[in-house]
C-alpha cells in the first residue's frame, strides 16, 4: 500500500507543528451565537471545577457586567489586577499581559477575545495579547461570539443590520485546541433579555430592539452551530490525515444536481460528484416529474432511472420531485435543503426554442438567488448509460385516436353543411374550433394537431369559395385560416395539458390514497404478522407485483418469514442479492445497475434506528423493471413499511424492558424476603443445637426435649418455606406444566388434611363435599397444594381451637371449593391484596409466612383456568374460594357393575 503512506515532508511539517504546539499553550474558546448565551458563566464554572481539582487557574480578565451570578463564580479565585490606562480623562482597566506571563498560571481566563484594547496598549487587540500568552506556554480559556469572526462580519451585518467593529481573524478560531459551543435557543435568550439578565455593549444596546429579534438570533445561532461544526470537521480531517483515513466525511455543503432523461446526464452526475468531492460536499441528484415527463418513452424513463442509480452508486442522495415547473421545484427544494450549489447540464437546444419556450438554465440562474449555479457542458463524450439513440418522433397516441380526430372534423363538416346556407363563414369556423377542442380533450396531442390542420383544410375545401378546391378567392381568408389554425393549435395544446394534469393529479391522488390506506392499516395492525400481511398486500395491489418481505434473523441473515404465504419464492441467487441490499442499505436487483440479473428488485427497509429488512418486488409485467416514478413511490411505500415495522419492534422492546424491570423488582423483593425468612428458623436451629452440643450436663431432660422439639419444628417450617419459594419461582418462570388428570376433590382434600394432622389437632374440621360431585380435569398435586396452602393460611391467621370448614359444590360450569375460618376476618379492602406476592397479614400465631402461599394458590388456579377470591363471612371470619372449570364432557367410565 505505497499510496497510503504519508508524504515524508508532510510528516515533518506535522512534527514541527506538534513540537511548536507542545511548547505553546492550549487555547480553549467558549463560543456563542450572541451576548447572553452564558459563555462567561460556562467558562467560570469549568474553571472552578479545575480550581477545585487543584489546577492553578488565574482569572486574567473577567467581565462581570455587574451580574451577581458571574461575580459569585469568581469569588475565591485568584484574580489578576487590571492594568489602569488613562484615556481621554477616564481610567480604563485592561488585561495586564506582562503580569499574567510573569505569574505563569497553568490556565489563564481571559474574557471577550474580540475586545479592542485602549490606545497605548502593547497590542491593539486582545486576541493578540492572548497569542502572546499562548506563546509563553500558558493555556488560555476565552470567550467569543460568532459575530466577531472576521469572515462572518459581512453576513452578520446583513442579518442584524449592525456593523461589528471588533473582529478576530478566523485563523485564531481555527487554531483553537478546543471549542465549546454554548448554545441557547432564541426563545430562552429572549426570555433572559426580558428578565434583564443580559449585559449589552453600548453599540449593541442602542440597536437592541432590532438586534434581539427571533429571526436574527436563529440565524446567528445557525452560523455559530455551523462554524463549530466546520471546526469539528477540520479537527476530524486532521485526525484522519494523521491516521490515514481516506474516506471523505460530509461537511456542511450540499450540491444539487438536476438530472433528466437526457443521455448527457450521466456525465453531468459524474462532474457534479467531482465538484462535491473537491468541496467535501454532500451530493443530491434530483429529477423533476412534470406533466411533460409523463409522456416520456420507455427508453427515456429507463435512462432516467439509470442516471439516478448511477448517482446513488456515487453515494449521492436521489430525489424525485413533481410539479409543474422544473425551475420552481428545483429552487424550492434547494432552499428547503440548504443547498449551496446547483449543477445543471448545458442544454443543446436551438436559440429560438430558448427564446420561445424559455431556457431552463437561464430561468434557474435568474431564480436561484444566493445559490450558485454551475452549468456543466455536454461534451461529445458518449455516456455508457445512454447508448440508445434519442428518438425524435414519439407517437404517443395510438392510431384509432387519429381516426377519431378525423371523424370529429368530418362530423363538424356535416353540421356546417346543414348550417352553410343560413350562417356566416365565421360561425362555421366556430363549429370546427369546437371540434378541435373536443378532439384535444378526448384524443391527445397528436390527433388534436391533425384535427386543427384538417379543420382548416375542410373549411377551405368545403365552404370557402371557390368551393371544393383548396384555392381561395379572397386573400382575407388567409388571415381567417391563420388565426383559426393558431387558435386551434393553442386550444388543443391547452386542452391536452389540462387533460394531462388532471390525469397526473388523478394518478397522484390514487397513489396518495393507496399510501394513506396502507399507513392506516399498518398502524391498526394488531400484531407483527398482520403488519407484514397488510403491508405486502398493499404493495401487491398498488404496484401489480409479487412482493416478498425479507426480515433479518439474529445473525443478520435475511429470509422470508415462514408465515408469509403470499410472498413469491426467493431463490438462492436472489436471496444473495437481498442480503447484499440489506448489508449495504442500497437498492439492487432487476432494473438497477447493481446485480441486475436478479429476478426481482430489492429495496432496503430503512427506518430511523437502522435497517429492518429488505423488500423484494417482482413486476408482473414482461420487462420486470419499474419506471423512475414508480421506483420513487416504491421507496416511499418501503419507507412507510420500514417505519411501521420499527415502531412495532420498539413497542415490543419497550414491553420487554418493562417486563424485565418488573422481574428485577420482584427478584429483589424475593431476595430480601428470603434472607429474612430463612434466617429466622436457621437462627433457632443453630441456637438450640449449639446449646445441646455445648452443655449437656447443665440442661435438664425437659429443656433438652424442648430444644430438640424446636429444632424439629423450625426445620419443618424451613422446609415449607423453601417448598413455597421453589414453587413460586417455578410458577413465576412459567415452567410448571400441568399434568391434568381426572380428579375427585375428596382425594385432594383428604391428603392435605392428613399432612396437616398435627397442626390441625384440637380444631373442629367440618367437610361438606357432595358425593355426586363430578370429577374435574386438574393436576392433583397442584390442587392439593392449593388446599394445603389455604388451610395453612387459615391456621396461621386464626386462634388455635377455632373451627375450619371445607365445602365444595357444583355450579353451572365450575366446581367451587370454599375454606372458611372463624377468625378476625380480612381487614376491609384487602380481599384482593392478600393474593399479592409478599403480602402478609397480622398473624395470630406470631409466625408470619413469607407471603407466598396465597400467591402460589392464585398462580395454580389461574393456570387451571379457574378463579380464586376471598370474602369475609357474614357471621365473622374469612372465607377463601376457588373455582375450577368443568370440562364440556365428563370422563368415559366403565360399564357399571352391581
Amino acid at each position, binding site marked *: 500500500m505505497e499510496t497510503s503512506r504519508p508524504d515524508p515532508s508532510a510528516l515533518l511539517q506535522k512534527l514541527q507543528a506538534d513540537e511548536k504546539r507542545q511548547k505553546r499553550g492550549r487555547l480553549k474558546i467558549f463560543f456563542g451565537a450572541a451576548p447572553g448565551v452564558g459563555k462567561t458563566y460556562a467558562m467560570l464554572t469549568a474553571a472552578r471545577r479545575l480550581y477545585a481539582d487543584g489546577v492553578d487557574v488565574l482569572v486574567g480578565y473577567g467581565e462581570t457586567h455587574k451580574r451577581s451570578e458571574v461575580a459569585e463564580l469568581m469569588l475565591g479565585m485568584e484574580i489578576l489586577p487590571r492594568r489602569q490606562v488613562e484615556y481621554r480623562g477616564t481610567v480604563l482597566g485592561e488585561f495586564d499581559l506582562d503580569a499574567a506571563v510573569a505569574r505563569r498560571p497553568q490556565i489563564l481566563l481571559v474574557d471577550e477575545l474580540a475586545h479592542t484594547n485602549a490606545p497605548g496598549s502593547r497590542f491593539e487587540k486582545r486576541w493578540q495579547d492572548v497569542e502572546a500568552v499562548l506563546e509563553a506556554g500558558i493555556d488560555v480559556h476565552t470567550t467569543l461570539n460568532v459575530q466577531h469572526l472576521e469572515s462572518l462580519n459581512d453576513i452578520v451585518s446583513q442579518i442584524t443590520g449592525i456593523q461589528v467593529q471588533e473582529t478576530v481573524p478566523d485563523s485564531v478560531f481555527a487554531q483553537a485546541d478546543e471549542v465549546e459551543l454554548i448554545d441557547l435557543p432564541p426563545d430562552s435568550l429572549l426570555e433572559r433579555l426580558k428578565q434583564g439578565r443580559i449585559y449589552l455593549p453600548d453599540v449593541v444596546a442602542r440597536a437592541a430592539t432590532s438586534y434581539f429579534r427571533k429571526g436574527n438570533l436563529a440565524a446567528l445561532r445557525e452560523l455559530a452551530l455551523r462554524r463549530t461544526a466546520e471546526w469539528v470537521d477540520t479537527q476530524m480531517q486532521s485526525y484522519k490525515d494523521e491516521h490515514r483515513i481516506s474516506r471523505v466525511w460530509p461537511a456542511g455543503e450540499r450540491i444539487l444536481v438536476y438530472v433528466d432523461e437526457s443521455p448527457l446526464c450521466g456525465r453531468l452526475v459524474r462532474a457534479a460528484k467531482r465538484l462535491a468531492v473537491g468541496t467535501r460536499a454532500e451530493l443530491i441528484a434530483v429529477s423533476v416529474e412534470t406533466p411533460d415527463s409523463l409522456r416520456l418513452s420507455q427508453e427515456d424513463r429507463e435512462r432516467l432511472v439509470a442516471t439516478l442509480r448511477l448517482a446513488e452508486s456515487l453515494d449521492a442522495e436521489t430525489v424525485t420531485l413533481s410539479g409543474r415547473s422544473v425551475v420552481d421545484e428545483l429552487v424550492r427544494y434547494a432552499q428547503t435543503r440548504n443547498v449551496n450549489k446547483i449543477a445543471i447540464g448545458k442544454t443543446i437546444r436551438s436559440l429560438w426554442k430558448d427564446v420561445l419556450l424559455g431556457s431552463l438554465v437561464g430561468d434557474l440562474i435568474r431564480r436561484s438567488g444566493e445559490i450558485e449555479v454551475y452549468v456543466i457542458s455536454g461534451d461529445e463524450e458518449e455516456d455508457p448509460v445512454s447508448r440508445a439513440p434519442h428518438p425524435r418522433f414519439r407517437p404517443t397516441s395510438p392510431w384509432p385516436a387519429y381516426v377519431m380526430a378525423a371523424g370529429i372534423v368530418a362530423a363538424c363538416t356535416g353540421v356546417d353543411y346543414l348550417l352553410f346556407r343560413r350562417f356566416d363563414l365565421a360561425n362555421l369556423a366556430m363549429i370546427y374550433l369546437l371540434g378541435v377542442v373536443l378532439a384535444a380533450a378526448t384524443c391527445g396531442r397528436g390527433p388534436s394537431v391533425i384535427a386543427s390542420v384538417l379543420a382548416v383544410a375542410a373549411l377551405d375545401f368545403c365552404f370557402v369559395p371557390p368551393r371544393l378546391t383548396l384555392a381561395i378567392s379572397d386573400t382575407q381568408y388567409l388571415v381567417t385560416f391563420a388565426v383559426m389554425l393558431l387558435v386551434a393549435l393553442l386550444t388543443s395544446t391547452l386542452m391536452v395539458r389540462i387533460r394531462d394534469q388532471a390525469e397526473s393529479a388523478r394518478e397522484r391522488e390514487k397513489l396518495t390514497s393507496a399510501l394513506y390506506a396502507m399507513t392506516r392499516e399498518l398502524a391498526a395492525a394488531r400484531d407483527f404478522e398482520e403488519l407484514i400481511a397488510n403491508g405486502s398486500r398493499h404493495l401487491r395491489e398498488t404496484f401489480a407485483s409479487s412482493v416478498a418481505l425479507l426480515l433479518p434473523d439474529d445473525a443478520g441473515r435475511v429470509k422470508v418469514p415462514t408465515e408469509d404465504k403470499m410472498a413469491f419464492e426467493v431463490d438462492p441467487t436472489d436471496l444473495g442479492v437481498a442480503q447484499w441490499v440489506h448489508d449495504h442499505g442500497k437498492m439492487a436487483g432487476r432494473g438497477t445497475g447493481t446485480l441486475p440479473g436478479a429476478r426481482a428488485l430489492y429495496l432496503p427497509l430503512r427506518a430511523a434506528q437502522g435497517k429492518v429488512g429488505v423488500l423484494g418486488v417482482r413486476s408482473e409485467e414482461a420487462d420486470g423493471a419499474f419506471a423512475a416514478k414508480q421506483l420513487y413511490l416504491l421507496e416511499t411505500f418501503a419507507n412507510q413499511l420500514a417505519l411501521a415495522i420499527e415502531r412495532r419492534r420498539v413497542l415490543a422492546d419497550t414491553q420487554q424492558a418493562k417486563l424485565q424491570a418488573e422481574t428485577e423488582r420482584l427478584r429483589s423483593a424475593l431476595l430480601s424476603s428470603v434472607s429474612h425468612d430463612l434466617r429466622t428458623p436457621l437462627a433457632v436451629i443453630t441456637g438450640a443445637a449449639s446449646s445441646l452440643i455445648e452443655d449437656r450436663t447443665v440442661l435438664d431432660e425437659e429443656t433438652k426435649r424442648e430444644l430438640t422439639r424446636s429444632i424439629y419444628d423450625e*426445620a419443618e417450617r424451613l*422446609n415449607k418455606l423453601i*417448598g413455597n419459594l*421453589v*414453587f413460586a419461582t417455578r410458577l413465576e418462570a412459567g415452567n410448571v406444566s400441568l*399434568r391434568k*388428570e*381426572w*380428579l*375427585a376433590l*375428596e*382425594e*385432594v*382434600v*383428604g*391428603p392435605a*388434611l*392428613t399432612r396437616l394432622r398435627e397442626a390441625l389437632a384440637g380444631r373442629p*374440621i367440618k*367437610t361438606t*363435599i357432595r*358425593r355426586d360431585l363430578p*370429577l374435574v380435569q386438574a*393436576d*392433583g*398435586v397442584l390442587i*392439593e397444594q392449593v388446599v394445603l396452602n389455604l388451610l395453612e393460611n387459615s391456621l396461621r391467621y386464626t386462634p388455635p381451637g377455632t373451627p375450619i370448614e*371445607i365445602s365444595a359444590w357444583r355450579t353451572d360450569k365450575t366446581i367451587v371449593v370454599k375454606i372458611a375460618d372463624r377468625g378476625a376476618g380480612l381487614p376491609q379492602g384487602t380481599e384482593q391484596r392478600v393474593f399479592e406476592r409478599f403480602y402478609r397479614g397480622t398473624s395470630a400465631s406470631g409466625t408470619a409466612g413469607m407471603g407466598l402461599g396465597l400467591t402460589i394458590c392464585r398462580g395454580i388456579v389461574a393456570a387451571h383456568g379457574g378463579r380464586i377470591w376471598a370474602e369475609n363471612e357474614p357471621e365473622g371470619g374469612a372465607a377463601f374460594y376457588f373455582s375450577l372449570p368443568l370440562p364440556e364432557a365428563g*370422563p*368415559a*367410565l*366403565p360399564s357399571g*357393575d*352391581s
Partner: protein
Amino acid sequence: MNTPACAPLVLVVEDEPQIRKFLRASLIAHGYRLEEAETGKQGLLLAATKPPDLVILDLGLPDMDGLQVTREIRAWSAVPIVVLSARGQEQDKVAALDAGADDYLTKPFSVAELAARLRVALRHAARTQSGEAESVFQVGDLCVDLGKRVVALRGEAVHLTPTEYRLLTTLVQHAGKVLTHQFLLKEVWGPADVNEVQYLRVYMAQLRHKLEVEPTQPRYLLTEPGVGYRLAGE
C-alpha cells in the same frame, strides 16, 4: 457393633454424607445392619456381592440415574427397594415404582416414617418369599377375608360390587405399600385400561364411602397425590 448377625442388612445408596450419617444412626438404633454406597455403581456392586435384605436408594445420584439402578437390581433380584426423593418429583417416584421399587419416601422424612416403610417392605418381601398369603387381613375396624370373600366393617358385612372387591383385594395383597395408578388399573381392569385414571377415582370414591367413616379424612384408603393409593397396613 453389637447388632446380631441375623439382623436385616440394609444397603443405603446415597451420595449426601449428612443423610448417610443420619440414616446410619437411626437404622442401627432400630436394629438393622448397614452397608453404605456413595454412588450407583458402588451400590450395584455391593448389592451383588453382599446381597442385602433391603435397599434404600436415593434417586438423585451423581454417577447414574436412580431409576437405572432400580432396573438393574430388578434384573436379578427381588430385594425390596425404598427410594428417596424430593417433593415435586412425583413423576420420578411413579417411574421408580413402575420400574420395580417397592416404596418411596419424600425428603425430608422422619425416622418413624422411615421405620414404618422399612417394616412394611420387609414383611411384604418375607411373605412373597415364603409364598404363603394370609387369607384374613385386619386393620382397625376393617376385616377382609380373602378366602371367604367377605369384607366386614366393625363386624358387619359390607356389600361390594365385583370391581370394588377386586380393587380392595389388590390393595390388601400389597397392604402398606403404595400402588401406582397404572399398577392398580392393570390389575383390576386389565392392561388395555392402564390410562383410565378416572375409573380408579370413581371406584375408590365408592369404596371410601362404603368403608370410611369420614371419606375426606380416610383412615384406610389413603391417597398419594400424583402417585397412587395405599391401604393403611398397621
